[in-house]
Each structure stands twice: as C-alpha cells, then as structure tokens.
C-alpha cells in the first residue's frame, strides 16, 4: 500500500522522511507503521499544511488531511500493517520477540522499502521506541548514509512525523472499521471501541467475545497483559514453550504476558510432562520418537 507508482523528479534530490505508529497500546487490531517523505526543499511548505499530532485531531480532520496528502504530488507515503495474529504469535514464540523489536523491524522495513524505490533519503525523523540513543545508533549502523533524529513527541515536533502519524492512524482506523472477524460464531459483533484496554466499549466487547477454550477471536492480541485477567475464567492451556519464565523488556503501553500471571510457575515442571510424552529413560529409538510405555490409560 502507498504511493509507490512512478518515481517523481524530486526523489533524486535529498529527501526527508518521518515515521510514526498507530495502535501500539490497544489490546486488539493491527499495529500500523506509517511513513511520509518529501524533498528537503519542500519542508517549509509541509509546515503550512496543518499536519499535527494525529491524536490531537478529530477523525474527520485526519481523514481530510490524509486525502490531501495523498493528492499532493510532492509527498510520498507508505504503511506497514502488522496483523494482530502476527503480534501475538511473535510475542508468544518459543523465543519471544518483544514489541520494541517488532516496532524497530517495522520502521527498518519502511526505510528499506522507500530506499529500494529509489528515494534519496538523507534525514529520517522518528518517535523514540525504547531508549532513544540506542535506537538511533541501531538505525545509523544499518543505514550509515542517513541522518536519524529520534525524539520523544516527534509527532508534534516535526511536521513530517505528524504527517506520518496521520497516515498510520487513518490506516489503522480504517482497517479496524472494515475488519472481518475470522471466527464464524454467532453473536459476534464489530463494536470493539478504540481497542484501548481502558475503553468501556472495548472491555464490554472482550467480555462478550471471550471463549473458554479458544480465548478470543484472533483480532485480539493474546500477549497483552489486559487479556490475563480473562484467562482465569478460561480452560487452562499448557505449552512447552512456557517452561522458562523469561524476563523480557516490554513496551511502555502493553505489558507482555508473564507466566506467573497465568498461574504456571511452581508447578510448571510437573505439568510439562502432561503436554507430551517424552520417552525418557527408554532406549534411544523410543526417546527420539517420544514413545512412552503406557500400562493404563
């Protein structure tokens, strides 16, 4: 998705780009990374386009600004929509990937995409994710020809990032509005509110859509701390990958699921044997095939 048609003339002059995200905190729906780029010489005009931090704008205003920037031939944009299934799966992998890493990878992906299109990027502005300095160094090492500015509240400081925040926010809102639930159970509906854990509409939706065995529809980010309060009413599910309680650094907005919250921990070692046969103590043939001798069942 984006404006990657034929390459405009200004693409070969030094260009600046802003990157911002929408939907990092919500417990459901995709997380969207958006970028907006233009020639450095267009920077002054960009400042007159009334782009502001997307959170301070009304939805209609955001939509209007998005349509304007799409029509503007001096501006390019692109988005990376990260499906909630992918967020959950990565954060619950055997080797867990935290939200900051997912965010960094998405931003890096966008920079690569724009560079590969042939845009001469010289400066990139981003909001900080984790430690600002470490993030800047990580990006600079990967893209030595680009000057990176990583700053808190970049979306209200730099118009090019404000523009990117509008691209991201409008894309996420539309994706959520048009979301088709994969699950085909009756009594499901799409009034999930903003998706933020504190939103009463979101809370009501979660309570209504929880399922004792399956948990939630795949729209929900299972790795979010918000979900754990619902897990105690659900059927317990034990995974081999939960053997080790890893202390991973997680994002500021969404707490990554910790096993102690789900009631594993002490009993984990014993319980792991309930997950699969091990063939432990038998000869190698059986051991490597996890074949256990069963005297009764």
């Amino acid at each position: 998705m984006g404006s990657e048609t034929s390459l405009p003339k200004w693409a070969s002059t030094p260009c600046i780009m802003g990157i911002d995200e929408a939907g990092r905190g919500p417990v459901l729906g995709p997380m969207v990374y958006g970028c907006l780029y233009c020639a450095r010489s267009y920077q002054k005009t960009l400042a007159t386009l009334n782009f502001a931090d997307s959170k301070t704008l009304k939805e209609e205003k955001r939509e209007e600004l998005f349509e304007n920037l799409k029509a503007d031939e001096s501006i390019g944009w692109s988005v990376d929509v990260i499906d909630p299934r992918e967020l959950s799966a990565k954060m619950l992998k055997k080797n867990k990937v935290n939200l900051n890493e997912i965010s960094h990878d998405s931003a890096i992906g966008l920079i690569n995409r724009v560079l590969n299109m042939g845009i001469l990027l010289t400066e990139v502005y981003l909001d900080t994710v984790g430690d600002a300095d470490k993030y800047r160094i990580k990006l600079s090492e990967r893209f030595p020809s680009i000057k990176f500015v990583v700053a808190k509240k970049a979306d209200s400081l730099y118009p090019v990032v404000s523009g990117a925040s509008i691209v991201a926010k409008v894309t996420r809102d539309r994706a959520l509005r048009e979301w088709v639930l994969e699950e085909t159970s009756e009594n499901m509906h799409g009034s999930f509110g903003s998706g933020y854990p504190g939103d009463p509409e979101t809370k009501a939706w979660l309570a209504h859509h929880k399922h004792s065995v399956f948990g939630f529809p795949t729209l929900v980010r299972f790795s979010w701390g918000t979900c754990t309060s619902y897990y105690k009413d659900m059927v317990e599910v034990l995974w081999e990958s939960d053997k080790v309680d890893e202390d991973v650094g997680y994002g500021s907005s969404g707490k990554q699921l910790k096993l102690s919250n789900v009631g594993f921990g002490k009993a984990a070692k014993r319980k792991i044997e309930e997950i699969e046969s091990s063939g432990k103590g038998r000869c190698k043939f059986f051991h490597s095939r996890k074949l256990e001798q069963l005297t009764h069942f």
Partner: protein
Amino acid sequence: MEEEKGTTGSINLSLNGREEKINLSGQVHHLPCCIKFNGPCNVSQYFKPKLKGMEIDGLAVEEAHFRGRKLQGTTISLPNGYAGFVLVKNNSGKRKAYDVSEGNSNDWEMKAKFDKLTYWNHDTPPSKDDPFLRSFHWFTVAEALHKQVKAEDLATINAALT
C-alpha cells in the same frame, strides 16, 4: 519373581448397531499443548487451518492460530492397516462390584474413528524429522518382532550359528 503390575480391560470396537459410524477424518488435530478440558467445543468456528501452498519433505504445510500462538502443521494419513479411534469409558455396562470398588473399571467403547489427522508444531514447520511422524517407525519394528517364526527360519539361523 514378582508379577508386573497392570490393569486389564476391554475395548469394544463394534458398534452394536446402535449408532452410525462417525468418521472424524480431517477433524482430528494433535496440538503441541495440553488443553485442560474434555468435552464438546465449536472447533470449526474458531480454528481455521489454511494451506500455505508449500511443501516440506512432501508434506503440505498448513497454518493456524490457537490462543495467540502460530501453529504450523500437516495432515497425514495413518499407515496402512492402522486406524484411529475415539474411545469413551463405558460406565453403563455391567461392571463387577470389585472393579468399581478398586476403581479399575477399564472398559472402553469406540465412539468414532479416523484414518487421517493433522498434527501441529508451535513455530516450527512440519518435517519428516518430527517425533510424531518418526513414531510410526515403531510399526515396522513391531511387525518384525511379532511375526511368526517358521521352523525353516529357525533352522537357517541354527545352521548359521553352528
């Protein structure tokens, strides 16, 4: 010598003409986790495996999600001569009093059968090195171990040893 401890029981694979044979082929999933629940569940409404359109070791890779985890699996046919059964403990039948008191009533009844199943790995794509597939090797070994030994076979072995 002490006798090995164990229980005896029976498995009834006949249907006694009471019910239609239920074939669960294509609906049996072996998950890499333990779900602490026994009972009916609207699986097909929530669990939506999709073919990935690629093959590993000749196995068609499928993808599905369960409780936020990405699962990769494949549907396999059970080896020739083997079948899968869903057994339910038979509580209605006539049980001997001492069986009940000692809690070792062990009579089972077949409720459904299947000749195909889908097994799933967490994160890793299916391959012929998966323990689940490799466990089928036992069938070949078992066959050799339990094959009737004919008199002439013994004679050849004896001849070779002397």
